[in-house]
């Protein structure tokens, strides 16, 4: 399976014998997460048979939609060795606010969609400019831009919302083949990104840079261009998430994007994307985000109050990464 995991091996040149020991680890993570998910579903189904219903599927998939797209964007950043983009919350709301603003003024939806994506891409490129020319760590840069962007947005608007009585908002709450309209673009994106990354030149460059950037540079890959490409594309993806977010959410305040930050980071890490770069499979995001999106719903079915849900969500994440880490450790031995 030519996924990103194997690509990282050829790029990093650290462990030439790694193919056989590393290849299963992508599968190992998939197996762990899939097993956890299945256990969760079965346990919930046994406790309450009506858990296995269309309503539950809808609830979970609505949550998956936005988180999944953001996770793809975050995974690209992580795999390229830029660790984390902490400015996703601001970029998401920025794009969504622009979308809402344009729709209010009657701009047609296709134009609005392009605008949303471009806004996201512009944000990503702005981050990349600071990172590349300042030679600064992406974590601190995106932390700062998130802060600054959020504060600037709050001065301009405190709440925004796409027009409710529009085809756009209808799209956000209706279904296609029994699943939410907004869920399908997420799946398409995951499949497409997962397919393209190891197979295109840019994707392979990105992973090479993430795995060992000095070796990549030695091979003639431009670090600068790669960084700009990664943040630009990742930003465009966040912009797309912003469009779907605006379609499916009510009034949103500038700071509210932060509710997605923890689920996205958790989803990315649980998908086996190494934040140090060079490793990870985007397709696994479907599993990890799916699992993590099912947890809150399950907990409600088990009768836990919201506060207890938070406690168990946190514990489940700890256990999940502990199991994953243990499995990876055993493989290394």
């Amino acid at each position, binding site marked *: 399976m030519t996924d990103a995991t194997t690509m990282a091996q050829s790029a990093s040149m650290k462990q030439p014998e790694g193919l056989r020991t590393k290849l299963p680890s992508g599968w190992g993570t998939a197996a762990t997460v899939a097993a956890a998910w299945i256990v969760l579903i079965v346990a919930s189904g046994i406790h309450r048979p009506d858990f296995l219903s269309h*309503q539950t599927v809808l609830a979970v998939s609505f949550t998956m939609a936005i988180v999944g797209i953001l996770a793809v964007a975050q995974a690209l950043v992580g795999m390229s060795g830029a660790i984390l983009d902490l400015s996703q919350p601001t970029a998401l709301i920025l794009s969504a606010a622009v979308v809402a603003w344009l729709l209010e003024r009657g701009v047609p939806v296709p134009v609005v969609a392009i605008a949303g994506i471009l806004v996201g891409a512009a944000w990503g490129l702005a981050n990349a400019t600071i990172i590349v020319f300042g030679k600064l760590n992406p974590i601190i840069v995106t932390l700062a831009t998130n802060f600054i962007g959020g504060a600037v947005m*709050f001065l301009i608007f405190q709440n925004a*919302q796409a027009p*409710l009585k529009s085809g756009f908002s209808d799209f956000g*709450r209706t279904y296609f083949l029994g699943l939410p309209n907004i869920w399908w673009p997420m799946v398409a994106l995951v499949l497409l990104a997962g397919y393209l990354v190891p197979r295109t030149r840019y994707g392979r460059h990105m992973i090479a840079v993430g795995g060992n950037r000095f070796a990549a540079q030695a091979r003639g890959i431009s670090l600068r261009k790669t960084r700009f490409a990664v943040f630009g594309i990742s930003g465009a993806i966040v912009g797309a998430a912003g469009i779907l977010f605006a379609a499916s959410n*009510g*009034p949103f305040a500038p700071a509210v994007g932060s509710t997605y930050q923890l689920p996205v980071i958790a989803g990315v890490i649980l998908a086996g994307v190494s934040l140090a770069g060079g490793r990870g499979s985007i397709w696994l995001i479907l599993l990890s985000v799916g699992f993590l999106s099912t947890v809150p719903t399950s907990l409600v079915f088990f009768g836990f*109050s*919201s506060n207890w849900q938070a406690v168990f969500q946190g514990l489940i994440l700890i256990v999940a990464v502990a199991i994953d880490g243990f499995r990876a450790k055993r493989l290394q031995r």
Partner: protein
Amino acid sequence: MRMTLRRTLATMTPVLLALAMAGATTGPAAAFKLGMAVGGDTCCDWMKAQGDVAAALAKQRGWDYMELSNNADAATATKNADLFIQGKVDAVIEFNGQPSVNPVLAAKFAAAKIPVVTYDISQKGFYFVGIDNLAAGIAGGQALGEIAKAKWNCQPDLVLSSEGAGAGIVNTWRTGGMRTGLQKVCPDIPADKYISFEGNGQAVVSLPAARDVLAAHPDAKKILVVGLNDGGVLGALQAAEQLGRADDIIGWGQDGSFITGNNVDPHLAGSVFYFLEGYAVYAMRDVIDKIAAGSPPAVKDDAGDPASRVQPCPVSAAEAAKIPGTADRVAALLKAPAGTTEYDLFCPKKS
């Protein structure tokens, strides 16, 4: 590297001293100085607007004005109190979303002999300006109950409560109050039909939480929604719409944030306006103008017997259609004659 540090310090010290001496200024006899600590929670436009209105009214009176943000954080609220005291303000308006620390603030301000007006959250020794949140909650719950009685004979399948535990006691009053009001009109709704979830008072957070709750109650068709504020209630309404369960869902909000304009959710039957952004008019009229004139009124710190009572204004969605949005309300308020409140200007039916 240490040499460089020492050298840097050596060169900077005379510069610092020079600047320190050059920067000393003494101003003329100071005008009345008003300090305001805004709530600082980025959820809501009225929190920022509260500061804007206070600033404008202070400017109209030719006062000095110092605004700080409590950032929804107790340590920051304490720091702000010290800053106000150091800044020698003559009076302070507090919107402190973390009232657990109010006793400490009260002690500090009392020692500095600075009178304090508090919005909505009572503290012994602070002038209370605001609504009785519990009464407002009950009023909203009763209004919703009347609808449930008329439509469903007081037999909903589910009563959702969108809580905002971060708001502390205000959440208990408003959301709990709405349940109390509902129970007054429809006392026979069984307790297990009341389900609470944490929505943080925001539609975006309320939405997924309500989705899960609705999925866990797949047979509920007739649904009532109460909550901390309009945003929290809206999230639940949208969740029902997304799950295709919105045929018989009715919500009643609090604070009127999202019931004006032409983008109102059709399932939001009404809300309760407090016109939070305009509180400063009450504060000035009944407390601070008097302090500035040299005759401070008696301290009334209880919500039941307040220094200045703000009237809540329950409205149905139809009535709310005539009320302008926050920005327009603020503009109109600042142009109105002194002492006119937003309740006077905008509440459709006054009691």
